[in-house]
């Protein structure tokens, strides 16, 4: 089905029509018999790309499936998501990766790109079959034990070296498990001291970020720092990026979640497990540093860490409840709310172009010009949305944004020329 997207403002600047041919590619002229998508007053961005999504399938299909997660992603304006490996079974073989990739194709709403585990079973000991996952039809390029830190420095070093053979990148959940007890469940600071909750200090993240950038430099490889959450990590990254740029032989990239750009640890006062997340919500000083780092490019990308959980896994005492919060439907609104002055060009950079480049997804994050695959999101820049957790396509309801008003609204999403979301609803 060919399309004419009428009257969109490209990256919030010049207004013109976009034409999509039968093959789902942007073209110069209106194809005959094209369906019209009214985009008057809307901003067109390349489809969003999420470096960090938990789709829960296989294993916890009661919390999310690849289909429902894809629906939520499309509603959030996404055309590609990287599905984290901490499923059951873990995505640590070519077969498992291929299965996730196939289910994503069957859902057909976004490109579902599996992330491979770094170590077998996420155990942190032996390397998973990184090369076989890469050679599979899923063509895995990003590897992560997310949820767990690759804590052993020797294992991390070998992983960084090994993925060089095929241009892979290791995405690290930076958190030294020895710097906090196993019950750690929130930011360690004055509030955790008062609430009597065992916490992680920011330093538990920072020491691993510091170690890993040195390992990346030593191995001449690529490390990606998942969900950066502290000002100290930003300081390390700023230094490391300058070094990497000077050397030209290695690379460090980093992502921040929407929730770390807007929510703070104060929300834990009522012990509501909705706000329990890993890495934890931090104080305002950290939030301010993360915003500044995203604006100045020290942090490359926004990634959602969308983490659906069945209700009963959150209805425990705070320390016993599951970690994580929903985020993929609301990410753009949160970024717009946290950083209202960020230009649309910059929004496209941090939510589409750069994450696509980091993930090695050549078809994604492309400029909206003839020849590019038609992955497009159309956003109403002046609208605001009051979030209703029950209106979500996700199977889960652990939504920290419920009742909040967020700026801008995703109106239409187009994935490979197919309208997946029309007027804010699944097409």
């Amino acid at each position: 089905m060919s399309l004419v997207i009428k009257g969109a403002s490209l990256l919030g600047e010049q207004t013109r029509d976009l034409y999509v041919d039968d093959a789902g590619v942007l073209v110069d002229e209106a194809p005959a018999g094209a369906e019209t998508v009214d985009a008057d007053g809307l901003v067109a961005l390349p489809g969003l790309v999420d470096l960090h999504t938990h789709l829960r399938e296989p294993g916890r299909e009661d919390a999310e499936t690849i289909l429902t997660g894809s629906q939520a992603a499309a509603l959030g304006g996404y055309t590609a998501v990287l599905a984290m490996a901490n499923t059951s079974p873990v995505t640590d073989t070519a077969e498992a990766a291929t299965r996730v990739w196939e289910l994503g194709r069957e859902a057909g709403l976004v490109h579902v790109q599996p992330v491979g585990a770094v170590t077998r079973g996420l155990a942190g000991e032996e390397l998973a079959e990184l090369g076989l996952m890469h050679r599979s039809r899923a063509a895995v390029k990003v590897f992560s034990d997310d949820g767990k830190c690759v804590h052993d420095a020797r294992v991390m070093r070998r992983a960084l070296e090994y993925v060089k053979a095929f241009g892979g990148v290791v995405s690290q959940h930076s958190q030294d498990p020895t710097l906090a007890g196993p019950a750690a469940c929130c930011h360690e600071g004055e509030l955790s001291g008062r609430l009597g909750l065992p916490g992680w200090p920011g330093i538990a993240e920072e020491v691993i970020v510091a170690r890993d950038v040195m390992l990346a430099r030593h191995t001449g490889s690529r490390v990606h720092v998942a969900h950066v959450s502290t000002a100290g990590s930003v300081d390390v990254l700023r230094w490391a990026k300058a070094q990497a740029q000077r050397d030209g032989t290695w690379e460090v990239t980093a992502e921040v979640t929407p929730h770390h750009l807007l929510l703070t640890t104060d929300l834990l006062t009522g012990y509501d497990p909705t706000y329990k997340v890993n890495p934890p919500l931090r104080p305002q000083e950290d939030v301010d540093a993360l915003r500044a780092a995203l604006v100045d490019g020290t942090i490359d990308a926004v990634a959602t860490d969308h983490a659906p959980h069945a209700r009963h896994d959150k209805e425990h005492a705070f320390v016993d409840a599951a970690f994580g919060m929903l985020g993929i439907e609301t990410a753009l609104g949160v970024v717009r709310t946290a950083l209202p002055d960020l230009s649309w060009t910059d929004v496209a950079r941090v939510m589409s172009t750069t994450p696509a480049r980091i993930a090695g997804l050549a078809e994604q994050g492309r400029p909206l010009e003839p020849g590019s695959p038609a992955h497009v999101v159309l956003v109403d820049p002046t609208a605001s949305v009051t979030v209703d957790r029950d209106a979500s396509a996700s199977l889960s309801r652990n939504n920290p944004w419920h009742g909040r008003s967020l700026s801008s609204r995703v109106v239409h999403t187009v994935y490979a020329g197919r309208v997946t979301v029309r007027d804010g609803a699944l097409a």
Partner: protein
Amino acid sequence: MKHLLSIDDLSTDEIHQLFETAADMHDVQSREVKKLPALRGRTVVNMFFEDSTRTRSSFEIAGKWLSADVINVSAKGSSTSKGESLRDTVLTVCAMGVDGLVIRHPASGAAVQVSQWVDAAVVNAGDGMHEHPTQALLDAYTLQRHLGSLEGRHVAIIGDLAHSRVFRSNIQCLTRLGARVTVVAPPTLMPSGIGAWSAAAGFETSYDIDSVLPDADAVMMLRVQRERMSGAFFPSPREYTVGYGLTRNRLALLKPDVPICHPGPMNRGLEIAADAADAAQSVVLEQVSSGLAIRMAVLYHLLAGDTRGGIA
């Protein structure tokens, strides 16, 4: 007051009111027939997710002396491991028609969360490292009986502050009643961020027990778990005792008749020497009887419909 989850739930007036009721209840304890009819027909469930002998017995006797039907539910072993959520566990018990739910749980905040799910009045009998409000009330009540008003009096709290719910409730209760408080612990057993907290709440911190004891009007020792060594909190029990224990020698630093409290169970020889625990000025056993009176007062105020008529 609908629940008692934290000292923060109580106004200063309410604390004084509870103390007045507790004094009446204390008198009842010396009667031959100790039972009052106040809570006849009311059901109180003691739901303990963590081992406890003294607190559970104390609440049980307090309820029984007020003629409530008291049921103990041992819910030890995390509900997570049984596959049941905490919400399901407490809703199941409350569906049996419960007026008061006394809850002890190893997780901080559990009582706060439970109070949002149930209709019953919830009493926090200790939640993780967060609070133990009836302990703080009984401590302050005991001290008042010895010192009169706590206004301007100096109380030293010494021990494992980081892991102590007794400390977290006491610091609020004592400062509310006008006491000057100094807390003493090695840096590794101070709660995180205590610098900002103490500045905001107006109490002092110290690493030096010997400089604090001579000025104290009351001393409150906290239990230290021997197994804290495994978390590298301190090198050995021996070193802890030398640095922070209330030893026989340190007793001599105290002003005469300064009351010595301990919430129990005591680690004799670790945080408190037998000479201190059994000293004439030790109020450890009196804390137990005060605890009964305070818990009777709390149950009475929460559950006895009209509390204005007194208890006669």
